[in-house]
């Protein structure tokens, strides 16, 4: 178990209850999508899982150790965190230095650091931005740089808060491919179900508490959960469901475009 939460509740100042009794285990190498409506507590949950904030009720365990306010630095080494707003993440005066920040803190030798930075910038398609001041980039460019800052560290667990928001379609596809190629465990909070379907094996639906925890295929069979969590099938899936109704046929909502295509082909 890489990360595990037991009976975690969280309240912001002013009695704003963001999380209620959340239980959750993240296994080694697992890719989990965290979905739910705006204000569901996704970002809050990720903060707790990254030892960036601390639950007053319940326990958070990271890499076999219980997270406490003191000693959090150790736990933080295990997880890489992508902030929802990239403005929060870029810090150093140049993109190159910013991406090098994490690896340098890990105490890697300079050569290794440079190699990692180059690789990471390449992976997110931001190599041409290396010399720029990160604060002066467009939002999508910042997002890419922030992601590169994580990739260059390649920590055992990745927690990504809306990694694809504000990326252009090609950037989104590239990122999905990069993430698919990684072996780390990851939790991806996203509103983009197409991305979630492609990336994750397991869906957790959050709305203050955990509404659902299982595979996407099961989730598709639970329209009441989808509804309560403001979710909506991706457009190709929606199309297929409409088609199914029209045909009066019986098949499960496809999870990928390829799957949908197979269904269509079989129909012929």
């Amino acid at each position, binding site marked *: 178990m890489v990360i595990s939460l037991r009976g975690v509740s969280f309240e912001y100042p002013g009695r704003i209850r963001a999380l209620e009794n959340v239980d959750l285990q993240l296994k080694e190498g697992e890719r989990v999508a965290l979905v739910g409506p705006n204000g569901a507590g996704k970002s809050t949950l990720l903060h707790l899982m990254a030892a960036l904030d601390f639950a007053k009720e319940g326990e958070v365990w990271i890499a076999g150790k219980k997270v406490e306010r003191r000693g*959090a630095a150790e736990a933080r080494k295990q997880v890489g*965190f992508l902030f929802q*707003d990239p403005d929060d993440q870029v*810090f150093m*005066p140049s993109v190159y230095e910013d991406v090098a920040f994490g690896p340098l*803190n890990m105490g890697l030798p300079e050569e290794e650091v440079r190699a990692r930075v180059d690789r990471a910038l390449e992976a997110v398609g931001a190599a041409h931005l290396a010399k720029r001041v990160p*604060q002066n980039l467009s939002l999508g460019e910042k997002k890419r740089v922030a992601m590169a800052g994580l990739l260059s560290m390649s920590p055992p667990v990745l927690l990504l808060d809306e990694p694809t928001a504000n990326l252009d379609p090609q950037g989104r596809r590239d990122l999905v491919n990069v993430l698919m190629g990684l072996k780390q465990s990851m939790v991806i909070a996203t509103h983009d179900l197409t991305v979630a379907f492609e990336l994750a094996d397991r869906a957790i639906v959050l709305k203050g508490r955990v509404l659902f925890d299982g595979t996407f295929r099961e989730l598709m069979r639970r329209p009441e959960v989808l509804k309560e969590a403001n979710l909506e099938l991706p457009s190709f899936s929606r199309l297929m469901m409409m088609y199914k109704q029209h045909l009066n046929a019986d098949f499960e909502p496809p999870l990928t475009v390829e799957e949908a295509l197979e269904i269509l082909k079989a129909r012929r």
Partner: protein
Amino acid sequence: MELNADRFAKDSWLSAFDPRVKLLCFLSLAVVIALLTGTEVLLLALAFVLSLAAVSRVPPSHLARGYAMAFPFIAAASLALLFTSGTGNALNMGLRVSASVLLLLVLVSSTPFMDVLWALRWFKLPSVLSDMIMFTYRFIFVILDESGRMRLARSSRGFRGGRSLLDGEAFKVLSNTIGMIFLRSYRRADRVYLALLSRGYDGRVRSLGGHRLRFRDAGMGLAFLIIGALALTQQMGWYVWW
């Protein structure tokens, strides 16, 4: 408001020197300048500072702007002396403050801020202070950013401020604005700090290609030493034939 002190730092000829040596040289010279009272030595010091400015390749207009910002203080100090203790003292005051202000301007505009910090840390400045300096510096931009955005956002929703400050309504708007900028910036700062922690920040910023002492650093040290000694000995009257 322009506050990008790093803009010319990377292209400056002086940026190739070790920041520790640079900091030490410049700051010692600043102390020496503060001790000078003779017009001739002050002129010598000023000439040296100006030649530093020339070789630094920092655009003169940039230095001039910085100097202009400090000018009211320089003028005020000199003017006060003009009326209380004569032209000579006033002139010296003006020269002295100008030289030390320019010296520091050259230093800061030819050295990336992170390098200055690195040198300060090397000189064993307590980490609370060096951290505070680094974050404060970064957060100054956050605040300028946030207030700029707020101004844009307000004006795009039809706000036109700019009344006098002493009526109650305007005061409310002003303190509201300051408070809001502050709160926004604090939220942002908190997240920026957390983001650093999650990338392994432990109170020490490491940099690529750390600095090593080289020959030219010794050269710089020597040059400053000579100028400093020259000025001081002259000041002490050891060779009055100047």
